[in-house]
C-alpha cells in the first residue's frame, strides 16, 4: 500500500488502460490512458509514470504521473482500449466509436477515425457501453442491444447484429478470434460465434434466479474456457464455458456494483476487481502443489518458478485453482489495495507489476509494485 500513489486530476475517471508493452522486451509499462465522464467537456488523456531512471530522481522517490497530452471527447468515455501502441479506441455515451492516435514525437492526440451513431435508437442516440479490439477488428456493444463489428482500416461497418440482446449489453470480450462474450443487464453471459451468420448467440449462460445485472467480463489468458464476471451485487462469478450454463462458482467480493474484473495477463493466479463501493481487490489463488511449503519459498521465488514453468497452454494445477473458487479452504486470498475510500473505483488495469485505477473522487492511483 505504501507504493500506491494518488494523483488528483480534476475529472472523474471512467477508464484507465496501460499502453501495451512490446512482447520482445520484458519491460514494465510506463504510459497509460484515461477517459473521463460526467464533465461538461470530457477528455481522453495520456499519462507517463516516467521511465525508471528518469530525470535523476533519487531512488525510492517516484513522481506523480505526468500528463503528456489530452484530447476532447464527445460524451462520457464509457470504454477505452488500446488497439496497438499508438491507437486508442473509445466508446462514447453519444453512441459513437472513435479511434485516437497518439503521436509520441510531438506528444499530441488526434482523432483518426469516427463512427458516429454506431449505437442508436430510431430517434435518439444510444450509449455505446463497451468495445474490444483485436487489431484490426473492433467490436462494440451498447444500450441498444446491438453488436457492431468494425475494421480499423475501413470506414464502413463490417457487421451489425441488431437486437442481439433485449436488454443493455454492459461489456464485451474476445473468447477466441472468432468468438466473443457479452454480459447484459439481466444476468446473462452470451457467447457469439462470428463464423455463423445467425443473429442469435450460440450459447446463453445465466445466473440462476435473481437476474442480477452483470457489468464486466474477462477471460483467463491461458485457459480460455475460464471466464470471470462481476455484477451489480458485487459478486465475482467464475464460469467454465465448456460445461453447464450456470456459473461454476460465486464469491462475495464487493458491496456494490463490480465495474471491472481483470486476470493478470501473465500471472493468472492473480485477479483484480474494482467496485462502486470504492474498493479495489487483489485476489490470489495459491496453486495447489505437491511441493512441501518450505520448498516453495517466499513470494518472489514463487513468481520466478511460476513464470518459468507456465507453458503457453497453462498447467493443469491452475485450472482447479480458479474453478474450485473455494475461499473457505484458504486457497483464495483477497487483499484491499487502496486506503479507505468512499467513492467508486470505476476502472483498473494491470500489466507487469504496475496497476492503475481511476475513481469518481477524481483521483488516479498508480501502484508500481503489485506483488504478483
Amino acid at each position, binding site marked *: 500500500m505504501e507504493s500506491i500513489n494518488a494523483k*488528483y486530476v*480534476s*475529472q*472523474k475517471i471512467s477508464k484507465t488502460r496501460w499502453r501495451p508493452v512490446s512482447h520482445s522486451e520484458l519491460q514494465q509499462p510506463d504510459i497509460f490512458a484515461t477517459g473521463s*465522464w*460526467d*464533465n*461538461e467537456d470530457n477528455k481522453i488523456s495520456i499519462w507517463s509514470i516516467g521511465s525508471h531512471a528518469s530525470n535523476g530522481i533519487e531512488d525510492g522517490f517516484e513522481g506523480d504521473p505526468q500528463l503528456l497530452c489530452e484530447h476532447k471527447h464527445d*460524451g*462520457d468515455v*464509457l470504454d477505452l482500449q488500446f488497439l496497438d501502441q499508438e491507437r486508442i479506441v473509445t466508446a462514447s*455515451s453519444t453512441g459513437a466509436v472513435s479511434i485516437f492516435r497518439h503521436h509520441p514525437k510531438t506528444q499530441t492526440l488526434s482523432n483518426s477515425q469516427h463512427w458516429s451513431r454506431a449505437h442508436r*435508437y*430510431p*430517434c*435518439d442516440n*444510444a*450509449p455505446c*457501453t463497451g468495445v474490444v479490439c483485436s487489431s484490426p477488428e473492433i467490436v462494440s456493444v451498447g*444500450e*441498444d*442491444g446491438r453488436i457492431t463489428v468494425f475494421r480499423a482500416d475501413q470506414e464502413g461497418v463490417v457487421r451489425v447484429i441488431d*437486437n442481439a*440482446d*433485449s*436488454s*443493455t449489453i454492459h461489456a464485451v470480450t474476445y473468447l477466441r478470434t472468432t468468438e466473443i462474450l457479452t454480459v447484459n*443487464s*439481466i*444476468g*446473462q453471459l*452470451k457467447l457469439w460465434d462470428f463464423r455463423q451468420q445467425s443473429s442469435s448467440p450460440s450459447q*446463453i449462460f*445465466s445466473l*440462476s*434466479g*435473481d*437476474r442480477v445485472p452483470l457489468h464486466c467480463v474477462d477471460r483467463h489468458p491461458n485457459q480460455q474456457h475460464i471466464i470471470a464476471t462481476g455484477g*451489480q451485487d458485487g459478486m465475482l462469478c467464475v464460469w467454465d464455458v465448456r460445461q453447464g450454463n450456470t456459473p461454476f462458482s460465486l464469491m462475495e467480493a464487493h458491496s*456494490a*456494483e463490480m465495474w471491472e474484473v481483470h486476470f493478470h495477463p501473465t500471472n493468472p493466479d492473480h485477479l483484480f476487481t474494482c467496485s*462502486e463501493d470504492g474498493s479495489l481487490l487483489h485476489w490470489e489463488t495459491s496453486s495447489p502443489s505437491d511441493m512441501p511449503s518450505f520448498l516453495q519459498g517466499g513470494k518472489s521465488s514463487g513468481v520466478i518458478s511460476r513464470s518459468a514453468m507456465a507453458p503457453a497452454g497453462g498447467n493443469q494445477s491452475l485450472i482447479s485453482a480458479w474453478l474450485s473458487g473455494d475461499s473457505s479452504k484458504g486457497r483464495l486470498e483477497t487483499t484491499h489495495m487502496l486506503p*479507505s475510500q*468512499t*467513492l*467508486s473505483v470505476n476502472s483498473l488495469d494491470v500489466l507487469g507489476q504496475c496497476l492503475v485505477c481511476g475513481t*469518481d*473522487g*477524481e*483521483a488516479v492511483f498508480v501502484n508500481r509494485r503489485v506483488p504478483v
Partner: protein
Amino acid sequence: SIVKHTEPVHNVPAVSDGKHMGFAWGPGDILVYETLYKASGMFFSLFSSFSVVCFVQGSGSSLIHEVRKDEDIYSPILRKLFNESHHIFVGLQTIREDLPSKSKKPQFVSISKNYRSVIRACMEELQQAAVSTGDEDVSKQYGNQVSILLAIELIWNLCEVLFIDAAPAGSLLLHLLDWVRLHKAEVDEKAREVLQSESPAEHRGYWDVVVSYVLQGRLEEARQMLVKQATLQPALRSMYKLMDTLLAKMPFYNPGGTQTLTEFDVKWRHWHEEVDRCLQDNSFASNQHLELICKILLGDEDSLLECKNLLSTWYHFLVTRLLFSHPTVKPTELHYYAQSCMTMFLDSRSVPEPLDSILLAAFEFDIHQVIKDCSIALNNWWFVAHLTDLLDHCKLLQSHNLHFGSNLREFLLLEYASGLFTHHSLWQLAVDYFDHCPEFGRVYLELQIERVPLETERKALKVLRICEQRQMSEQVRSICKIMAMRALRNNRLGSALSWSIRAKDAAFATLISEKFLEDYSARGAFSDLDLIDNLGPSMLLSDRLTFLGKYREFHKLYGEKHFTEAARLLLSLMTAKIAPRSFWMTLLTDALPLLEQKEVIFSVGQTYELMFCLEELTSSLNAAAPGSDPVTKVELLRLALARNLAMAIVKEGTVNT
C-alpha cells in the same frame, strides 16, 4: 488587504439599458432575465426555471442570463481541494464519539493539519499556473485565488492553535511563533539573496534580515548572520560577542521538559534584567543596529514600531511583543494584547480590513464571530463549512441556535453541499456531506438527487445505488420509471421491463407486458425471448407479467412437443384467471392444434372446462358487439371441442372397462 469580495461582477447589459429584470433562484445559480415591468409583483412568484422560460418568451425578450453564485467550483485546480477535503471530511466523521477527549485531540489536530496541507498544495499549484499561463486575465484570476487561499490558511492555522490544539500558557507563544514564521516566509527569500551576494555583511538588506530573524525569535539564525559582520569589524569584536551571548542565553520554554512554567519565568526575568543592564550601561551605544536589537529583546514598543516595515502586520507585531515581554501569556489574556497591538500598529485613520477583524475575533476566542465574518468576507462556503464542522467535532460550538435550520454546522454544510450539487460532476461529493447532516441532510438529498440528469444507464445505476443505500424508495421508483419510460419510448421493451422489475413497479410491468402481448398478436412471434424466458421469480410482480411468462412457457412446451403439459398449462391460464379475458380467444385458438392431434390430449373434464370458457367468452362477446369473424372461429372451435369430447369419452371409457 487580502480578504475582499472577489465575486466577479457580471454586467448584464440590459440592466444598464434601464430595463426591468426578473430573476429566479436556482439551487446554486440565478437566472436573470429581461421583462416587461408590471406592478403586480409577479416576478417573485416565479421559482421554477420552466416558468421563467415561458415568461421570457411571452415578453418578447430572448435572453436569459445564468449568473453563477459560486465561480470557484468551476476552477479545475480548486476541484482538487474539494475532492481531497471530501476525503478528510469523511474520515473525520468516522472518529468515534465515545473516545476520551484526550485521545481525540491529537486526531483533530492532525485532521486540521491535513486540511491545511491540502490548501497549501492547491495554493502552490495555483501559483505555478499563474506564472506559466500566458493570459494576463487568467493569471490575475489565479493570483486572486492564491490570496484568498493564503488568508484562509492563515485564519485556519490560528484557529488550530487557539481552539483545536488549545495550547496552554508557555506552549501558546511557541505555537504563535510557528504561525507567524510560516506566514512570513519572505525573510528566508531575502536571507538567501543576501547570503548569495559577494559580501553578505555589506549587502544593503543585511540588517533587515538580521532584525527580521530576531523579530521572529529565530535567534540561532540571527547569530550566524551576526558572525559575518563581526569578522568584518574586528574592532567591535567584544560588542558582537556580548550580543551573541545575550541571544544565545535567551530562554525558551520547553513544553516537553521538566521545567515548570514558574521556573522558566524566573529564568526569563533574569535574562531580561541582564539585557536591560547592557542597554543601561550603553554597551551597544556605538552601533545603532545592535542597540535596536537590544531594545527589541527588551520588548520596547517604540523600537518594535520602528520596524513596522519588517513586521508588516499587526499580528506579527503582537507575537513579537509577546515573545519579548510576556512569553508566558495565557490564552485568556490574548485579546487584551491583540486589541492594543492592532490599535498601536494600524493607522488611526485606516479602517481595519475584514481579515484584521477576523483574526482579532479569533484572539478574542469569539468563534461565532470568526465564522460569521468569514462567511461574509469569503466567496465560497468551503472554508467555513469545513472549519465549523471540525470545531463542532471538538465540541467548541455550544448549542448556538439559529433562527432557521438546525444548527450552524449543519446550515453551513448544507449550503456548501448544495453548491456542489449544482455542479455537473462534483454532485457525487455532496452526497456524503448531506449524509452527515442529521436533521435536513436527507430532505436536501431527496430533493436534489431527482434533478441529476441521467444520460446513460451507468449514471442512472450510480444514482440508484445512492438512493438504494439510503432506503429512498420514492426516488428509486422515480429513477427506474424515468429509465423505463425512456426505454419504452425507444421501443426497447426488454430494458423497459427490466427497469420496472427493478422498481417493483407492477403497473408499469403490466403496461409493458401488454405491449409484448400486442406485439405477439400482431406478429405471431415473441420478441426478446432471452428476457421472457429468463424472468424467474420476478414474473410474480404483476398478473399480466405472470401471464406473459406462463404463456411463453406454453409455447416452449408446445414447441418441445410436451403436449399434455402444454394443454394443462393453457387451460389453467384461463381457469385460474391469469389470462386477461381479451386474450382468451387467442388461447382457445392455440388449443385448436392440440384438439386436432391424432392422440387425445384434453381429457373429458378438461374439454368441458374449455367449452365452459368458450361459452363464457361468446356470451360476453355477443353482449358487446357481434362480429362476423369471431363467429366462424367460434363455430370451428365448437366443432373441434365436440369431436375431442367424443374421442375422449371413448378413450376414457375404453380404459375404464
